[in-house]
């Protein structure tokens, strides 16, 4: 058996007599085979089936007519269940473990159903698809695991007549399928968490920072997690491979702490936003309930760390709980953010000032770019109505419309550039590329209509939406020119002001 927490000392197990072997003495009559008669045996030794020198459950059926257990075996079982060293108490038993597996399985399945039913496809099409993929993978992974665990238990029941906890836990820690899918699920959920935090920030520059930092941290933490976990699992499955356990002893707890620190940071960001937008969060009963569930979900993972430190039972099953925690903290929080932003937009729509526009939007000309892209897309589309073959090329040309024109008068010589310039150019290209992909996520909500204009077919729904957009921005009547007359606007309050001032003036003159 491989212990998952290789960085902790194993507690010294008790010496159980039934596991070491009991000398039953002579005078035992045994009937071993059908074709042989009953035999008389001298000096009989009896040894119970034990897992890692600890007693296990018997799967045999007991009735009133069954022989009683030996006194020594009963004493051993009492010591095992009352002592805390060898996972003997009921909370470490197979029943508690099975309950955890199935509960996590049901929760993951429910979350997947919630994702497919309630999460809106738009405006974050990519992120919502990612969330669906992650939750589906988690459900599939847990389904496979539950089936495998039941198969292991059935085999033990049929061949050995026991119910072993260690066999199920070994499956959890050494099954490569479970680990590979778990790796993907956690990575996807972490990326979704990054997307959620990006949605909470309104400014473009902050979104960029969150995206870059979040994605880098997610990938680094997952890669670091994969190194000790897969090494241990592969070495367990392939005994001939060399495995330097001592070298990875330090990495394993570090990654464990890194994950906890990341989830604590995520929880603090969400809780801070709940605090700052508490009026919206408590606006109605449904939103308040969702907020409470959100707080519970994001605090669950740091909470498990505390439980883990205090109780080894949680540590044994941490991977199962981790999967559910990650999926829950992505799905529930996503739903909460959706509701929160809808309420926020509603409040903004009802207010005089409307949606706030930040200086970042102005500085990077996002609105100008959006308007240009919109205009360009619609004018091209109307010019080449019905020709859908060259739409992909048009789409590719859009960024060139926005980008500043190149200096065509520049004379270039075949001079070798200095190394510093080359490095700077390369670095700036990398930064520009990263910024472009970041903005692709950020600006997507602005340009999603524009992009979808090219990709959609000529359905009625599409035409209606296109007509609406054209009408909104005034492209449906391009030849009509309006001349506006300037006129002074006189408000009632001003008239009153004038009247009061005139009255005052009259009174002064009379006096």
């Amino acid at each position: 058996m491989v212990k998952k927490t290789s960085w902790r000392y194993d507690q010294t197990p008790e010496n159980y007599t039934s596991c070491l072997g009991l000398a039953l003495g002579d005078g035992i009559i045994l009937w071993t085979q059908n074709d042989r008669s009953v035999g008389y045996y001298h000096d009989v030794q009896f040894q119970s089936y034990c897992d890692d020198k600890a007693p296990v459950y018997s799967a045999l059926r007991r009735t009133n007519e069954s022989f009683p257990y030996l006194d020594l075996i009963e004493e051993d079982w009492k010591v095992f269940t009352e002592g805390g060293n060898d996972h003997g108490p009921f909370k470490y038993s197979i029943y508690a473990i099975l309950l955890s597996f199935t509960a996590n399985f049901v929760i993951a399945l429910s979350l997947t159903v919630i994702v497919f039913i309630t999460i809106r496809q738009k405006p974050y099409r990519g992120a919502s698809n990612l969330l669906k993929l992650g939750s589906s993978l988690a459900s599939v992974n847990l389904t496979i695991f539950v089936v495998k665990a039941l198969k292991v238990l059935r085999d033990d029941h049929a061949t050995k007549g026991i119910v072993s906890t260690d066999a199920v836990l070994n499956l959890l820690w050494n099954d490569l399928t479970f680990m590979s899918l778990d790796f993907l699920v956690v990575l996807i959920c972490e990326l979704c968490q990054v997307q959620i935090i990006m949605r909470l920030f309104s400014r473009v520059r902050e979104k960029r920072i969150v995206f870059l930092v979040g994605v880098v941290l997610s990938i680094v933490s997952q890669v670091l997690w994969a190194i000790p976990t897969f090494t241990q699992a592969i070495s367990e499955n392939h005994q001939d491979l060399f495995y330097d356990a001592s070298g990875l002893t330090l990495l394993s707890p570090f990654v464990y702490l890194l994950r906890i620190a990341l989830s604590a940071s995520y929880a603090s960001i969400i809780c801070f936003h709940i605090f700052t937008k508490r009026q919206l969060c408590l606006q109605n009963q449904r939103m308040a309930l969702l907020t409470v569930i959100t707080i519970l979900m994001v605090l669950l993972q740091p909470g498990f760390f505390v439980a883990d430190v205090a109780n080894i039972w949680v540590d044994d099953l941490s991977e199962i709980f981790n999967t559910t925690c990650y999926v829950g903290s992505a799905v529930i929080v996503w739903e909460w953010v959706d509701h929160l932003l809808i309420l926020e937009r509603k409040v903004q729509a009802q207010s005089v000032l409307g949606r706030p526009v930040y200086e970042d939007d102005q500085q990077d000309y996002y609105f100008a770019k959006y308007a240009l892209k919109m205009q360009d897309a619609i004018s091209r589309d109307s010019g080449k109505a019905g020709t859908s073959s060259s739409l992909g090329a048009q789409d590719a040309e859009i960024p060139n419309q926005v980008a500043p024109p190149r200096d065509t008068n520049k004379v270039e010589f075949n001079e070798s550039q200095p190394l510093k310039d080359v490095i700077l150019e390369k670095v700036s290209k990398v930064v520009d590329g990263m910024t472009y992909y970041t903005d692709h996520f950020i600006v997507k909500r602005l340009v999603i209509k524009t992009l979808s204009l090219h990709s959609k077919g000529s359905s009625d729904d599409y035409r209606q939406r296109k007509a609406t957009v054209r009408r909104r921005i005034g492209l449906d009547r391009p030849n009509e020119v309006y001349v506006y007359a300037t006129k002074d606007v006189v408000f009632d309050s001003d008239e009153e002001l004038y009247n009061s001032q005139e009255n005052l003036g009259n009174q002064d003159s009379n006096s």
Partner: protein
Amino acid sequence: MASSLRLLICGLTSIALIFQIIPVISIPVVHSIYLSHYNGRAFGVFGWCSTSTNVCAARRIGYVTSCENGSDTVDLNDFECAELESPGEFLPSRAKRDISKLLIVHPISLFFTFLLWLLMVAINSRRLGQSRKILTCTVLWSLPAVFLSLLSFLVDILLFVPFLAWPGWLLLVSTVLMGVASFMMCGVRRSVSLQKYEKLRNGEHIDLFPLQFEKARSEDLQGSRRRSEESSTPVQTLLERPELVHRSV
């Protein structure tokens, strides 16, 4: 208002820095400060000491794991060597002694916090405080600083719970203070960015002040009354003077 906010941020970071220094100078540097006391041993970041004999292990990151390496145990007597060789639990949390090498995050975190504190002090000056690059750098630097502070607290929890002493818990306070300071720094960066943008756009320095319609109206009324007394020119109302810009905070 802005300068007092920056002073508050600087103060929070200073307290966080002090709270991070205390665990780092724990035993064997300062004998009265220790991260944990368990089984007759007091543990610090750079080593551990036996409280009965008052003898400390050599100062290094990570606790001595065996007596085979002579250079590690120059200060230990035979009794302590025998104690080390015993396979029993050395740390309160049953973590292996190798894990104590993770205490390296303490000095690293202190370094990050110290640089953050320097940046916070720097942005209190008029010149650097208006630089958007410096402010962005400070906000970005605060991310790993908070993260490492949290990590060092978690390492202490992992190694010493349930016998973690007060210097270990100070790290939690330090992490919270730095987190709050970072959030405030984000606000400062936003306001400076906005002010710069307004200044660039309007070509003048904008002072933010609350809306005072009633006061402005009464002043306007009084002024118009005086003007009407002096001359017969038409009275100007607020709406006819669009150059007067009122901004709310």
